[in-house]
């Protein structure tokens, strides 16, 4: 019997795939998710290579008043110039870096803090769970954008504080998601086995529990980045985020708003950039949800 078991493990059936491979194949069969992935890959590469495409000091920041408010054209500036004569495409390209860095960092921060709190709440239960969940109740009772605004109001408007504010406002959501996921596997036999051989709590959580409930966390991570892109743009639009002359999509939209009557491209183009990125992240998030949902296996 033992021999048989070992043989079966050592020689997997031909054509069988790991869960990860299965999920990946399911993701690739979803056209929307693939389109989202392609768009995001191009966007991330553009953000990484932004300095190679446009020089920050001379093309993004430096003013060129004689060329101000030139409409989009194939011969001159492809997407036109802003009120200070700066190329809108150059500012969009560098703005993508700012939007992505702020959004990504804020969600990583939220995942690190919220995930730790959620894992502790789910794993230990009892008083710890109660305290952490009541704290998240309070945080969830404050509309997220408002909470971020209050933090920026207190700390001052700059990129670091914006990242902190957005991260802090997403902490309760990750705490909830991770807690719920941990609760589903906490009683599993392999967790009990790990505990019975004397593994420390940290090891059990990090090596045995979290890898087995990573699906919902990945999905939430993708969708929260979409929300963070929105909030980054929103706060910069209100003048509480990235400060000019640094380019950020929401800030570009806010400055273009003044000229909306005669130079509407200054408002339309940054908005399209924000919308396309959120759309791509939503498509990818939906695709990941379908691919990682165990009910579909």
């Amino acid at each position: 019997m033992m021999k048989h078991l070992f043989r079966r493990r050592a020689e997997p059936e031909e054509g069988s795939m790991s869960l990860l491979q299965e999920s990946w194949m399911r993701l690739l069969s979803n056209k929307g998710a693939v389109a989202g992935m392609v768009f995001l890959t191009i966007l991330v590469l553009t953000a990484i290579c932004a300095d190679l495409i446009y020089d920050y000091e001379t093309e993004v920041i430096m003013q060129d008043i004689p060329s101000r408010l030139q409409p989009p054209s194939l011969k001159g500036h492809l997407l036109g110039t802003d009120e200070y004569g700066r190329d809108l495409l150059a500012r969009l390209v560098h703005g993508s870096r700012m939007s992505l860095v702020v959004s990504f960092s804020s969600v990583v921060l939220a995942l690190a803090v919220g995930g730790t709190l959620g894992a502790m709440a789910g794993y230990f239960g009892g008083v710890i769970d109660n305290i952490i969940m009541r704290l998240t109740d309070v945080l969830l009772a404050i509309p997220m954008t408002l909470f971020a605004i209050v933090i920026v109001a207190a700390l001052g408007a700059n990129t670091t504080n914006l990242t902190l504010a957005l991260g802090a406002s997403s902490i309760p959501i990750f705490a909830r998601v991770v807690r719920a996921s941990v609760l589903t596997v906490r009683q599993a036999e392999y967790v009990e086995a790990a505990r019975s051989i004397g593994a420390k709590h940290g090891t059990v959580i990090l090596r045995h529990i979290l890898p087995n409930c990573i699906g919902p966390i990945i999905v939430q991570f993708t969708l929260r980045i979409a929300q963070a892109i929105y909030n980054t743009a929103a706060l910069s639009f209100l003048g509480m985020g990235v400060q000019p002359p640094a380019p950020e999509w929401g800030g570009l939209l806010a400055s273009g708003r003044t000229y909306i009557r005669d130079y509407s491209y200054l408002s339309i183009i940054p908005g399209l950039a924000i919308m396309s990125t959120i759309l791509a992240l939503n498509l990818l998030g939906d695709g990941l949800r379908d691919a990682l949902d165990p009910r579909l296996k």
Partner: protein
Amino acid sequence: MIRYMIKRLLAMIPVLIGITFLVFMIMQLAPGDPARLILGENASPEEVKELREQMGLEDPVLVQYFRYMVNLCKGDMGKSYITNRLVASEVAARFPYTLKLALVSAAVSILIAIPLGIIAAVKQNTIFDNTCMVLSLVGISMPAFWMALMLVLVFSLRLGWLPVQGANMGWRSYVLPSIAIGFMNMAAIARTTRSSMLETIRQDYVRTAKSKGISNASAILGHAFPNALIPTVTVVGVQLGGLIGGAVLTETVFAWPGLGRLIVQSVNARDVPMILGCMVVMSVSFSVINLVVDLLYGLLDPRVKSMYA
């Protein structure tokens, strides 16, 4: 049900204490001296110190918080550092504008999105369904403040049909802000209604109802729809809550005289009592909406109702 309601109302108290405590403590980190802000840069240090003592700012933070809470229970939210007007009366004057706008946009989005979701589910995989779903995906990805700007560009600046901003032109003032806020909600509600309807129209009881000879419309509206409502109500609740927070941006674009714009103005002016007052009212509204949604579950689903008993 009443017991559950009372329990939920009581449970709101610690949450509200938590919210006020958190916001109060965060605002303590705000740079600048309120006394200096009120008296101006030319005031002497003695005058500033005297006013700080008068305002109780020399007391420990916890004492200040306790005093704020005692006053809040009496309906006193303090005075604005900038205008010296009572925060409570300022908030009370602005809140109806935010509430009316939220209700109008909620009504518009619900009335359009639910029928769209039902038709899309019934006509699954047709052009109508695909168009609705693509539009709703675009809708949930479109920032409301950008949508607001685009609406202003087309309907106010180009066509001249509707006012650019303000709330003083009767129903015409509500059209663009409510669409701007409601469009994203509409998309989310339509998507949820469609997927929940797709599940219920395939249930045995709907097939049984049809086999008994009732019309397709009665089977869908009378049997499937009520059972598909729970997820829709959840999303409507979440979206309504979002209207309160989202109002900040749309109200700024449309110069709407509501709480959202007031809070942005107060943040820019570092008017702490006004920020606190707005946050308390907005968070209470948010909690009340969540409570109402939970109670609606009980009305819609007898199984949930029996849990309350």
